[in-house]
């Protein structure tokens, strides 16, 4: 016995209000008599009348109120019910890249599906099954259902992807589904990973029906394919590095071929001992274009035998410097002359207008912030007080650096961040779109010295300290020069023609302002389709082409995943644990307590009391002539 809606309990105070109404009515109501002549003989009795002596009508109304409030409280009686259920079978199927490895003439994935279908066909009519596919993310292919034909059909339609796997997540989801409603069930895991790779508690691992598929170790893989080319280097200065690893437990030979725009530019035969790797480097390319690294001959897993990269053309970039300080113009001119492909345009704030900027430019605003937003990536140095972008709270001098984000691209190779000139700085309030890169501390609080962020789709860097006295070409200011160059590189917008590298299993986010439904995607496998969201799930290796009226991009997706390429990992510790509990086969009878609400009966009772009360009131009115 209990209530489901205790929020209605305060309504019981209405009973008190009902009593007050009755008392008030008694004091207010008067009984008309023709004369008090005869009543003078009866002594007056106020004290007795003050007492609360309810009549039948009051009790009827109180009962009516109680029944209504009782109905709102949603009372229930606990009822024990026994239900017959089948057993639950949750099938977790690994759809990651390694499941595409061949075992003879069939793929591991197809073997896993056959095994899963066998499990489904063995289920009883009351049993329920559920299918969860797991790659980078788990996905519920089929909810719990006893329609085994439907599950078999869905298994037929399941396809593997070229991504890594997160088996722990899939198994945890399956265990949670199994234990729902206190039902018994079994989790079947179909994967090529050894059971020891699961980082779950041993008790949970023991409860799994683990179906490990595949033993073939015959795999050579391109473990890495890097292209070193900064925005100021030409294709001839580009250097390509390739790492080839033998994941087999025996020596393997092969040929590594590198093609530029379809023409071979490098070919090398190699022999690798068991579990060994070799690296190869190529440079001095004669033109820009698509690079394809490929290992031959084919092996059990073909996905990791090929990788894509792009040798970019060097484009002239422009740095627009807007500063009232002439010395800085000259200093930056000297620096830009030493950077090939970079031109510099210097101007004073008075001469600046946003129309003078091109989308591929980088702007440097020194002691100046434009009143309107500029549509290029920008570096703001020592912004003036009362600027619209970075609220200046106070001035500070001789600050010392407290902390910095070493992993950020802007601080790469900066070993002596403390050497930055901090003679004079502004204390900025951190805008909501920015994050602190370098911070210091005043007596009052922590203050940002450098901050980065993205505003209106453009990268923004702000240095709160001044560098007009800092001579960038002076050897004492090497840290400042490196920071400036890193910042410049980080701010340079990507070449729209250059394909972007995206690891498989990750999502590519469309730039802000791109309308997804006007874009079409041509994936490496499958047909061209319209994009409906602002992300592209990169699940397969190869080239993705995005095309729209205003936006075009090419994505290169490669698989460099040691876990996936190592297709024959051996058990590291104990062999496969057997399930500890008996395999449930017979339907189970579950006894559980369910709340049996009876609030509706109270409402019916209230309606009945209302009718009876009305009839009684009418009868009393007919008798006394008063309500």
């Amino acid at each position: 016995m209990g209530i489901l809606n205790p929020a209605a309990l305060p309504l019981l105070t209405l009973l008190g209000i009902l009593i007050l109404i009755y008392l008030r009515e008694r004091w207010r109501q008067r009984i008309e008599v023709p004369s008090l002549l005869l009543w003078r003989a009866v002594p007056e009795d106020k004290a007795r009348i003050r007492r609360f002596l309810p009549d039948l009508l009051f009790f009827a109304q109180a009962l009516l109120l109680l029944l209504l409030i009782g109905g709102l409280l949603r009372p229930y009686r606990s009822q024990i019910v026994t239900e017959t259920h089948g057993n639950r079978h949750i099938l977790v199927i690994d759809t990651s890249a390694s499941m595409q490895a061949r075992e003879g003439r069939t793929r591991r994935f197809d073997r896993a599906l056959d095994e899963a279908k066998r499990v489904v066909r063995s289920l009883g009519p009351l049993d329920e099954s559920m299918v969860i596919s797991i790659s980078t993310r788990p996905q519920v292919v089929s909810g719990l259902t006893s329609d085994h034909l439907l599950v078999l059909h869905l298994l037929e339609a399941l396809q593997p992807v070229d991504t890594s796997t997160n088996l722990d997540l899939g198994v945890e989801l399956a265990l949670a589904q199994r234990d729902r409603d206190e039902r018994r069930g079994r989790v079947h895991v179909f994967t090529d990973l050894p059971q020891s790779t699961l980082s779950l508690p041993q008790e949970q691992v023991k409860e799994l029906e683990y179906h490990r598929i595949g033993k073939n170790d015959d795999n050579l893989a391109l473990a890495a394919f890097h292209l070193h080319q900064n925005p100021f280097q030409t294709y001839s200065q580009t250097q390509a590095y390739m790492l080839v690893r033998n994941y087999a437990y025996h020596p393997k030979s092969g040929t590594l071929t590198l093609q530029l725009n379809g023409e071979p530019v490098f070919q090398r035969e190699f022999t690798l001992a068991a579990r060994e790797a070799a690296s190869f480097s190529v440079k001095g390319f004669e033109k820009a274009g698509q690079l394809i690294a490929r290992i031959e001959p084919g092996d059990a897993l073909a996905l990791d035998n090929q990788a894509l990269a792009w040798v970019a053309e060097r484009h002239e970039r422009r740095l627009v410097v807007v500063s009232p300080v002439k010395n800085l113009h000259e200093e930056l001119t000297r620096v830009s002359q030493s950077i090939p492909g970079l031109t510099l345009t210097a101007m004073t704030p008075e001469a600046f207008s946003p129309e003078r900027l091109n989308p591929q430019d980088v702007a440097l605003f020194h002691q100046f912030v434009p009143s309107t937003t500029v549509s290029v990536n920008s570096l703001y140095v020592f912004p003036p007080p009362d600027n619209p972008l970075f609220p200046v709270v106070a001035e500070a001098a001789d600050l010392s650096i407290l902390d910095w984000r070493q992993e950020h691209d802007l601080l790469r190779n900066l070993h002596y961040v403390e050497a930055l000139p901090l003679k004079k700085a502004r204390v900025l309030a951190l805008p909501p779109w920015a994050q602190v890169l370098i911070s210091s501390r005043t007596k009052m609080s922590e203050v940002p010295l450098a901050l980065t962020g993205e505003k209106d789709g453009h990268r923004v860097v702000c240095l709160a300290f001044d560098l007009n006295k800092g001579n960038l070409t002076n050897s004492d200011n090497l840290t400042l020069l490196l920071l400036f160059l890193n910042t410049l590189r980080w701010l340079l917008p990507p070449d729209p023609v250059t394909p972007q590298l995206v690891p498989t299993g990750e999502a590519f986010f469309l730039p802000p302002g791109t309308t997804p439904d006007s874009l079409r995607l041509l994936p490496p496998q499958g047909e061209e389709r319209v994009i409906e969201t602002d992300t592209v799930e990169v699940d397969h290796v190869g080239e993705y082409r995005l095309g729209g009226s205003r936006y075009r991009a090419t994505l290169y997706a490669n698989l460099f995943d040691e876990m996936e390429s190592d297709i024959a990992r051996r058990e590291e510790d104990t062999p496969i644990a057997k399930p500890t509990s008996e395999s449930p086969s017979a339907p189970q009878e579950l006894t559980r307590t369910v709340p049996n609400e009876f609030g509706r009966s109270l409402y019916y009772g209230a309606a009945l009391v209302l009718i009876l009360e009305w009839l009684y009131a009418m009868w009393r009115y007919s008798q006394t002539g008063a309500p």
Partner: protein
Amino acid sequence: VGLTDFAFFRQLDRLRLRIRTARGHRPGETLIPRSTQAWGVEFEAYKDYVPGDDFRYVDWNAVGRLDQLVVRTFTAEREIPVHLFLDTSASMRAPVVDQKFTFATDLVSAIGYVVLNNNDPLQVVALATPASGHLPFRPAPLLRHRSQFARLPSFLQTLAPTGKTYLRETVQAYTEQTREPGIATVVSDFLVEPAQYEGALTLLKARGYEVRAVHILGAAEMAPERFFRRGKLYDVEEHGERWVSLSRAHLQQYQEALRAHLDALQQFCHRHQVLYSRATTDTPLAQIMTEQLTQTGFLAFR
């Protein structure tokens, strides 16, 4: 039974006023026993002829037998003016459940029908609260014939019970303006101090009226415990209030006070030869007219 019931009117057609001392000056249809006149319908007595008597009424057979001139005289036929005083004070509307005023107007209508059916003049008077510049009563048009009966309910419908009861003052004011006495019937709940109703009834007697009192009594007045147990009583006339709880003892005290009041009124009427009848609102009107008022001598069957 109501005034729209023809069967009820047929019962009323069988009734007439019972006259004791009242008589009018104008010829009418009511025979006045032991009172003679020279002409008429019903033979009453002989008298010696005196010069001036109409020869047509000389009884020649008696002259032959007695050798003496005798003249026949007849029972006098007079009209009896009936004055029906209706109490319209606020007490007649309380308690609401009793509907005393409606009952009283119906009773006045029924008595008025009997009066007019006998072609006696009828004057219904609503006793109102005295106010400066106004008569302390409101008379209906004088009705003389059965055909004029329809005007009586119309008049009664215009009345509403309100104000205090001033029986003596209003009756006195009326009698001062009326030259011909007759039967005076006071229809009231008589819920006033005894001095009030005694003054009124005594005055009517003194002015030569044959006085009758019809006491309207509500069922709720007789058994108040059926309608409330406790509460604040409100006097609709005096506007006084009294907190009363009807315990057994209190109820007994009330019943004793009521009985004393009724006894005092009844004994006064008996002493002063005022016909008294009590009509309770839960009694059918037909029963009151045909049984109660005939037994108490108000009415008689034709």
